[in-house]
């Protein structure tokens, strides 16, 4: 048993890795990127300044890196020349999609472009040489490091150094109309001097290439941070994602936990009752009602409950939404009562669906057991019917629905989008949806990975609990 548990737990690591890979690739490959939400994309004519901002933004979120593997060290001068030509429609008429792709590649290429751009300064085409000088200033520039993690003073010094480095060549860009020859000659001289000094940093040995291939990617950087328990910051408001998630968790957990509890509390007696009265009219009525509940979508149930019980048609017993009213001086008890009052309707809505399914499981479980030999034996030895049912049948009949609990775990985190929206509760569900719409990768990853972990743990718990409560199952 213990061996099995350990084995399963160890297996969770590669499974989790696989899940994170699939989810990460999916999110990153969907059209759009966090920059759009940041107002950085599609602003139209803001050429140079805009692009500078975009590069800084992308580097901060590692969006300049390829998603899974990095082959940029293998780019040739011809490749880079092609990119510059395409992005600026030099000597060819690329489609807009090709131009945008080339522009992105040039923005993202960074250090890998430097040696080719330096070589392109001597290109026979002066327009190409001048563009190379312009791209060099951004490609060679270093991204600032985060000052919030690690040693802030060291980071601050490092940033001063990097900024000084970046400033040292901003004047060599040779902007403006193409082919201003004296400016270009200057740029060549400056950059060649610079190159003699710095070239070592931009040339890759095979070993370095292999390292870059796997590690200089978005996924590798994400995992590096993850291992350090750093979930990153939100691209929308730059707040650490973990802090945000923890704040939202309060709402989702109280809502889901109460709902699950309520569902079980009602489902078990209802299930047992219909099992015992199986086939009777009351069982049929219950079955119909439960199936009705099961098929009603939550947004409908929620809206109907709100209409009936909070809008004064006919009752106005409960608030029309929110998690709490936040009174002026909340005592713990007062606050609890307040929250409970607000949660009545959302919890009922949430529980209504789970209730139907759970009570069906309970009913089947008990019916299976009731037909077993030992129940007949129990009756035969003259035990009273309630004792037979409650002590012998129910305890065994509940095994399947207890193990279902494990599968419910992830709901605690992922929350319910619909219920949160209908009842204006700022929980995880609506947070996840908003993060997806705005392509806030770090937030999406954090929520989905948290549910993935809970799903894995849930499956483990339900497997183990089977073995624990049912001696017929042997895991070893």
């Amino acid at each position, binding site marked *: 048993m213990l061996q099995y548990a350990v084995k399963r737990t160890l297996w969770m690591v590669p*499974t989790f890795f*696989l*899940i994170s890979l*699939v*989810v990460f690739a999916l*999110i990153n490959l*969907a*059209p*759009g*990127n966090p920059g*759009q939400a*940041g*107002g*950085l*994309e*599609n*602003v*139209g*004519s*803001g050429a140079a*300044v*805009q692009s500078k*901002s975009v590069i*800084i*933004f992308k580097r*901060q979120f590692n969006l300049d890196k390829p998603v899974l593997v990095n082959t940029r060290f293998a780019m040739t001068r011809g490749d880079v020349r092609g990119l510059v030509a395409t992005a600026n429609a030099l000597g060819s008429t690329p*489609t*807009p*999609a090709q131009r*945008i792709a080339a522009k992105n590649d040039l923005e993202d290429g960074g250090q890998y472009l430097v040696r080719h751009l330096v070589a392109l300064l001597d290109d026979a085409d002066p327009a190409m040489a001048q563009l190379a000088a312009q791209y060099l200033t951004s490609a060679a520039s270093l991204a*600032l490091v985060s000052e919030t993690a690690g040693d802030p003073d060291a980071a*601050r010094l490092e*940033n*001063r150094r990097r*900024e*000084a480095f970046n400033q040292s060549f901003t004047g060599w860009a040779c902007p403006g109309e193409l082919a201003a020859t004296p400016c270009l000659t200057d740029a060549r001289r400056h950059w060649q001097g610079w190159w003699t000094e710095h070239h070592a940093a931009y040339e890759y040995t095979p070993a370095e290439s292999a390292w870059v291939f796997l590690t200089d990617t978005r996924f590798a950087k994400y995992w590096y941070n993850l291992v350090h328990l750093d979930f990153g910051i939100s691209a929308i*408001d730059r707040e650490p994602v973990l802090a945000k998630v923890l704040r939202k968790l309060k709402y989702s957990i109280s809502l889901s936990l109460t709902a699950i509890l309520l569902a079980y509390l009602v489902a078990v007696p209802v299930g047992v009752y219909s099992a015992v009265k199986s086939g009777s009219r009351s069982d049929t009525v219950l079955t119909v009602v439960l199936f009705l509940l099961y098929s009603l979508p939550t947004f409908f149930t929620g*809206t109907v409950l709100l209409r009936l019980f*909070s*809008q*004064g048609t006919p009752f*106005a017993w409960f608030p*029309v*939404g929110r*998690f709490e009213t*936040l009174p002026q001086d909340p005592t713990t008890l007062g606050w609890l009562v307040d929250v409970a009052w607000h949660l009545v309707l959302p919890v009922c809505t949430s529980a209504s669906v789970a209730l139907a399914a759970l009570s069906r499981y309970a009913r089947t479980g008990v019916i299976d057991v009731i037909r077993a030999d030992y129940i007949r034996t129990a009756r035969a030895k003259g035990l009273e019917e309630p004792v037979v049912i409650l002590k012998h049948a129910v305890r065994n009949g509940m095994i399947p629905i207890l193990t279902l609990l494990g599968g419910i775990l992830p709901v605690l985190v992922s929350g319910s*989008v619909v219920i949160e*929206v*209908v*009842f204006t*509760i*700022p929980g995880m569900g609506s947070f*996840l*949806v908003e993060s*997806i*719409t705005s392509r806030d990768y770090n937030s999406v990853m954090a929520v989905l990975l948290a*549910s*993935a972990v809970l*799903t894995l743990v849930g*499956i483990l718990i339900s497997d183990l609990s089977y073995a624990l409560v049912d001696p017929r199952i042997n895991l070893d």
Partner: protein
Amino acid sequence: MKRLLQSGFGVALLALLVVVGLINTAQLHNLESHVAALEAGGLRVAGTPAAPPAAATGSVGEKAGEICTLSAADEEALNDPANLLVPFRYPENWPASIARGGTLKRQIASEPPGLNLIASNNSADISELYKYITSRIGYQDPTNPDAISPDLALKVTKSEDGLTYDVWLRKGVVWQTPAVDLNDPRHAWLQAPHPLVASDFAFALELIQNPQVVGRAASLRTYFEAWKPIEVVDDHHFRIRVAEDLYTNLPQVFDLEPMPRWLYRFDEDGHPFDDATWGDKQNTHWYNQKGIGLGAYRFVEWQEGVRLTFERNPTYHATKCMPANFDRVEINVMKDQQAWLRNLKTHQLDYTQIMPQQFNAEIRGKLPYLGEEGLKLAIHDEASYYYIGWNATRPLFADKRVRKALTLAFDRAGLVESVFAGLGEVTSGPFDQRNPCYDASIAPLPYDLEAAKALLLEAGWKDTDGDGVLDQVINGKRTPFEFTLVIYGGSTEYETLARVYREALLEIGVKMTAQPLEWAAQLKKTAERDFDAYTGAWVPGWEIDLHQLWHSSQADKPESSNYVSFRSPEGDRIAEALRREFDPEKRTALCHAFHKLIADEQPYTFFYQRKRPMLYWDHMNDPVFAKLNPHRDARLLSFATRPE
């Protein structure tokens, strides 16, 4: 072992399904958010938000149309004929009596990412919130956007050559107190009051031009890119130099909003940021989740996911003419449209906007709504227009007769009436219909399938193979008239629209397939010009500049806004002339000429200009609406009687 692998795979599959499912749910975001995104990322709402009025208790004899002057210094400055500012006037439909005080309870559909005016990601919703707490150089009359009166500045002048603008600031204007505990020793450095000085404007420009700052700065940067640093003459006088004398310069001068250098250049303990990284620090500034400004209201509190609270600003400078109408404003975060109505009905809100589908289903012709006496309805115009854009680089749409035929086959009046709840006006050109630029004499094309057929025949489209779809030989290849229309994903209105349009097109032998796309995917397609046709919307500014959307230089630039690749030498000429024309009448003539050109060329099938309904309780005065976005400018709202 095998079972374990299976369960691992199962879980991965499950995660995948969850993601796919969630992406689908995310698409449920309706048209509203697309428009918000449009307003945020697409066209700048040029010159839209003006400064706020308001604050104080004493009732002044304010009357519709009457002039109000803040001080003797204002009068003196306004007497200077060089001053570009005009006296402040109460809007024409200003309510006769206002019960000042109390708490206004309103809703907002999405929560702002932050309240830093420049470094937070802005969207349309948030520009509305900023209006409470900020003031600008001049106050733009919301009902007459051409009139800009003194606010932070007493006087604005323009040099003879048009390259220099001088701004003289009002004295004694003080920044709002930051919403922190000033008794906390950590915040002691914030205790002293900070007067508004000219360098706060210079700082704002530095913020916008610093590439490290993202958020709203990124979109502002496009417009302020060419400005030289602001020259601070003294604390109350600064000078702006521009490279070229363009009509759009002045609106931009008025768009520049001051930023408190004394706050944003420092960390929470009052230590200044490094010069190397101060720009980046703005994106994560400790005060970004709070707001500060010089407006009628002061930021008090933000309960995440619940509400933002503002209160009357005790140090507001324009109290005399436009006092704050409320003591407090509560902005409740409510994502669900149904929740707006529920909360309105249970008096959790004083007013709310309503979505068209809700309006159609629940309110249109059903007042008093839900049997509630005292609930009133107001409908206002929105400064935006909706359209279908035709990709002119596709051979199918290269001929203007074809584009015209496609417009004739689009039953716009019928759709506005039936699908969009009658909330709109069919439109014929690229301007707000209330803008003098819009030539009302150019009527929208009618719905006329016969005329459409005739035009297509004229353009050489015939059904030669008898399959019911028109065809023509293009580049030596027989091409059927088939195209894909990209529509907003998840909008039931647009799905209905596409169905109706497809039926009509089939009748004239054109086969259209609708492709609903989520916002980001649509942006990608339009930027890459990878579409036949798409549905879109623009919020044109009040001061018209045609360059961004219609100039042929923008057609060649990927990611610029001339998605349809409109190219016209005549159009370019008008666009360039308009940038340099200052005479209102000549400008109108140019605009009208452009309107005529566009109506003839039909690069877009212009659809409609939207109207928006708003429900409010009768303890509020009938709302005065702003002509520009944000239309439900809360400083124009007031109580007739104070609610308990």
